């Protein structure tokens, strides 16, 4: 490896294009939006950057705080369910026979490579009133009713399709479905690195499998659990498409509100302020994680 400190020219020639790209397409647009958040609309397309904090003031009104709070709650619940579902999946992949492992990982990754919109609409066809879940349940219900009639009992009441779509349940289900790979992959990475002899040592000392899992595997996989939680929670908090397509009137999340400010309400300054509040919240979370990592590194 070349030392970049001694080969400054070479390093700079490699670094210049990504840095320019980052500045042109990330830092500058973000800076403009940041400036907008301190401005106000003066015409249909014109924004006067006056340095006002009124947008932030409005963003902190109870109406928006409530949506913020709800978004956090939905993202947290999504993350929790992903963890509960994802941990056994990651364990299963880790302890599967080596020849099966790539296929299991592929099964986790496959939905991830499909367009989000297509996946969401596919999920909608499964969950809607005339969808496969309700059809199957309806068929089971009718069959049970028919059986009861056959043995001479009163039939069941008519089948009412379950409200599986356009509510908070649908949003959480959709978010879990979309974000599960984000949870499984870091968990798998952490579990795969785990020294198997630690598990064997625990069994050897008389521990059962459950105790080994809670006292040895889970604590040692903690870094993977934490990164899984963060990279699931952050995108879930900013989820836009899933609540928009699968949610009901009461299940809009903060990203849907932001979208409305930029589009229908045409209030870019307010949308910018909301965006930045969301971003600050995310950054603080990531910074806390980085701090924790550094502490852990300093200890070892």
């Amino acid at each position, binding site marked *: 490896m070349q030392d970049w400190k001694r080969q400054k020219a070479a390093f700079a020639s490699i670094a210049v294009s990504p840095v320019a790209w980052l500045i042109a397409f990330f830092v500058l647009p973000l800076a403009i939006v940041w400036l907008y958040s301190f401005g106000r609309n003066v015409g249909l397309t014109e924004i006067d950057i006056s340095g006002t904090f009124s947008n932030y003031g409005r963003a902190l009104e109870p109406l928006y705080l409530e949506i913020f709070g709800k978004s956090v709650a939905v993202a947290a619940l999504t993350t929790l369910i992903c963890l509960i579902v994802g941990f056994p999946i990651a364990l299963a992949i880790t302890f599967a026979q080596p020849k099966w492992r790539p296929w299991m990982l592929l099964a986790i990754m496959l939905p991830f490579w499909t367009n989000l919109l297509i996946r969401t609409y596919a999920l909608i066809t499964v969950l809607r009133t005339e969808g496969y879940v309700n059809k199957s349940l309806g068929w089971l219900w009718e069959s049970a009713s028919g059986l009861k009639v056959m043995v001479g009992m009163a039939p069941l009441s008519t089948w009412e399709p379950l409200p599986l779509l356009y509510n908070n349940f649908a949003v959480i289900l959709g978010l879990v479905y979309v974000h599960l790979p984000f949870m499984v992959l870091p968990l798998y990475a952490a579990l795969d690195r785990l*020294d198997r002899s630690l598990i064997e*040592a625990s069994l*050897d000392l008389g521990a059962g499998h459950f105790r080994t899992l809670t006292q040895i595997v889970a604590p040692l996989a903690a870094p993977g659990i934490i990164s899984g939680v963060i990279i699931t929670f952050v995108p879930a908090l900013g989820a836009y498409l899933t609540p928009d397509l699968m949610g009901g009137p009461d299940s809009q999340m903060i990203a849907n509100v932001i979208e409305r400010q930029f589009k229908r309400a045409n209030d870019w300054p307010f949308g910018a302020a909301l965006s930045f509040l969301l971003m600050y919240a995310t950054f603080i979370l990531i910074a806390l994680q980085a701090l924790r990592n550094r502490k852990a590194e300093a200890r070892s």
Partner: protein
Amino acid sequence: MTEKQPVISIRNVTKRFGHMVAVDNVSLDIREGEFFVLLGPSGCGKTTLLRMIAGFELPSEGQILIGGQDMAGVPPNQRPINMVFQSYAVFPHMSVADNVAYGLKIAGVAKPEIRTRVDEALELVSLGGLGQRMPDQLSGGQRQRVALARGLVMRPKVLLLDEPLSALDAKLRAQMQFELAELQDNVGITFVTVTHDQDEALSMACRIAVMNKGDVAQLADPADLYEHPANRFVADFVGSVNIFEGKLTVDEPEQAVVDCPELGRVYLNHGVTGAHETTVWVAIRPEKITMLPAGKAKAKDSPDGHNVAHGQIKGMSYLGDITIYDVKLESGRSIRVSRPNLSRWDQEDFSWDDKVSLQWHPTSPVVLLS
């Protein structure tokens, strides 16, 4: 000691991984209270055998009995044995004391008793007072002692040790060999150790099973293994040896002669038992050969022209306590001779290209049939 019933009985155990036979129909008994060593090169099946005793692998065929009880269907966490892993497997997120207490807590031992037993175990492995340390604050040798204490504190019938000293540096390893043997003697628990290091095996073991390709090549105590190897593999694997092929020309109860084209005529003052064919192998250890200036050799207790050879020194390696010479015989074969440096000037007696004569006593060579 030999009267005691075996604490572990391995009966016709075979282990296959796919088409690969790792352990091939092995039967052996491990006696209560002994320091038993499974010795062999990597891939000989010794670790697989140990893991089958621990319950981490299941035998494809055969039976393993611990304390007279068949272990088929008994999971690792219910076997009356504990294991010290090659990587030590000290739980990195627990303090030394918590590591040692882990098994006792699971066994439901009362808290005050756990504390005294943990302290005792740490004292036993000379880690007294380090209970609150975390594993990453310990040296490799100390981590290994934690693993030892963690097993010993459970007072198992048998403690299994998988290459316990392989990760330590040479000096510490030599020290730990003595300590382990002494510790085993003190606690009276049966130790079963796996190692590929013959020095380690010879210095610690009561008995050694040398394994080769899934099979036990010889089971004997250290001195027997070294002085009476059963075959070429054992002779070569345990210690350093010169092996020559030859024809058995005389085989009587009181004497035998093997004619080795590359070495000369080898005379033995005892008969060779069990030789069905005339092709045999003669093994002589380097330290059992005497080296003299050319022409000075006249092998005592042997007939004229037997047990002597002539050659030229082609290599020397001075190891301090001994010097090892590589002597090229008249036949072109090389033979290894070692010579103790009894005085401070001994290593100057011989030098490169010196012509020398070699001689040995009729009891020195071992005749091997396979």
